[in-house]
């Protein structure tokens, strides 16, 4: 039964994977490029910490942990759902019409229309930083911290994925709105890599409650390392990223449905 439900998607993804590995050299270059992006971004953090000792109350090790978590979450989401920003092209080429003519949900088809393995390069950069940093953070290992770490990565990936779906949904209205939508997805990724406390209040509010970037890595990092964070911040907030992920997905699915209705002309 379960096999029957998922089989179409398995076959769809399988065909996508095969087509990527057909061009091995180009795939290797893409992978390397993606790895370099991750490395360069970490370089940015490194350069900051050659000038300051503490950034937003985090030391270098903590900031590196924050960076690693944000990078891993973003790159995983980017691999699974990142191609959702191709929606305008799909609209123009009639690919979306083809989706509508197949007996599967349209969003599921959009998500399984690609699986960009090359983005694993960036994930690798994140994992490397995580592996090197963790022993230096002074983290006290316990079942709680391990669960929180895993939960953070799963929920963070889900939040970024939901952001990509929101960004795709917006493009049903803004036919050339890719740049606007990118401000939230890639902007959110950038914001998630830094301690939220360094941003000015309006930006902090935007990247906490509108685009919940702070929930992806910053708040869980504080909880993981048992740091106080900005005054007045309850420590249990670090455990709230799964809740945020559910909220974001609810928003994303509502937005997507509305966008699709707009496209088929039911809404306008």
């Amino acid at each position, binding site marked *: 039964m379960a096999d*029957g439900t998922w*089989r*179409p998607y*398995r*076959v*769809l993804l399988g*065909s996508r994977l*095969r*087509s990527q590995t*057909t061009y091995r050299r180009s795939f290797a270059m893409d992978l390397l490029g993606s790895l370099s992006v991750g490395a360069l971004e970490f370089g940015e953090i490194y350069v900051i910490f050659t000038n300051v000792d503490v950034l937003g109350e985090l030391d270098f090790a903590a900031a590196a942990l924050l960076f690693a978590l944000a990078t891993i979450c973003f790159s995983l989401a980017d691999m699974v759902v990142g191609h959702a920003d191709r929606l305008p092209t799909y609209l123009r*080429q*009639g690919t979306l*019409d*083809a989706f*509508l*003519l*197949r*007996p*599967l*949900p349209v969003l599921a088809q959009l998500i399984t229309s690609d699986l960009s393995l090359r983005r694993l390069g960036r994930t690798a950069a994140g994992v490397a930083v995580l592996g090197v940093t963790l022993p230096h953070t002074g983290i006290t290992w316990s079942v709680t911290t391990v669960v929180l770490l895993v939960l953070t990565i799963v929920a963070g990936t889900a939040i970024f994925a939901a952001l990509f779906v929101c960004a795709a949904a917006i493009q049903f209205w803004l036919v050339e709105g890719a740049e606007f939508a990118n401000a939230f997805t890639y902007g959110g990724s950038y914001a998630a890599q830094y301690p939220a406390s360094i941003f000015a209040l309006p930006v902090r509010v935007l990247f906490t409650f509108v685009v919940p970037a702070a929930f992806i890595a910053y708040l869980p990092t504080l909880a993981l390392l048992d740091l106080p964070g900005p005054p007045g911040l309850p420590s249990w907030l670090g455990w709230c990223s799964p809740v945020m992920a559910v909220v974001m997905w609810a928003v994303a699915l509502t937005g997507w449905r509305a966008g699709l209705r707009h496209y*088929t*002309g*039911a809404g*306008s």
Partner: protein
Amino acid sequence: MTDPIIDVRELHRRFTVRSPRGRFRRTRTVVEAVDGLTFQLPEGSALGYIGANGAGKSTTIKMITGILVPSSGTVRTCGLHPIRQRKQLARQIGVVFGQRTQLWWDLPLRESYRTLAAIHRLPQSVWTARRDELVDRLDLASFIDIPVRQLSLGQRIRGEIAAALLHSPPLLILDEPTIGLDVLSKERLRVFLTEQRAHHGTSLLLTTHDMDDVQRLTERIIVVDHGRMAYDGDLAGLVRRVGAERVLSLDLTTPAPPLAGIPGTDLVSVEADGLRQRLAFGDDTTATAVLEAIGRHVEVRDLTIEEPDIEEVVRRLYLSATGTGTGTGTGTGSE
């Protein structure tokens, strides 16, 4: 008495077109792309749906297949509500848009069919048998392992049609399937479609610019103009109604004086000092009778018969419907 496979009643679709006027202001114009269409397609029959570009053909197809919601009116396709029961409907219909691909450009047809079979959850034994039949009848074997983007247009369209028929849908909808194809590919496609209908009883809805497609594949024609029904009936009736004539183009062995006065014909043109002459004739005579009459005057080396152009038929139909008789029409859509 079974329900019609397509049931369209009082169908309307309005689009709001915003066009810039001045620097900031924009005007909104409401365009009636489909304006009160009503028709039923009985199961097993074939319908040619024709009209000028922008007449509302694609919009109608999109509403029938569940891509677009009607502004008002109802559509039932295979007895289903196209939007609310989209996924069920997708199993019942096969759709090919001639100018857009529904295949995966980077995959060979063989892979595409495997993927489509999984999407439609077809049992292995069922779909492989069906695929083999389609590969055989559409002659796909020589290029089934080549990525779609490397195929010629004719090969790709055959591949698309096989893809649309893989799940053996009772209704096949083809939007301009023969556009851009060479004569041989067109012919092969028509033979195949006729055969499929005979074997599987597939109902067919076809939009086309090609009069031969309509003649060979459908028994009924609907002409739309500005989203309205302009004609519903058979081809002979349409040709009778607009008085469209076929043109006999003759290449003669030696130059001859203009062939005026052949019964039932009008001389259309004389070229190359009378070596090539073109005669128009209507339904009141036959090509044989015309040829016989000509044979008494000149020796014919070669001949072709030009079917009435669909655009021309539609234009005449439109003119006769509005009663303007002659004139330039009022611009039926784009082009």
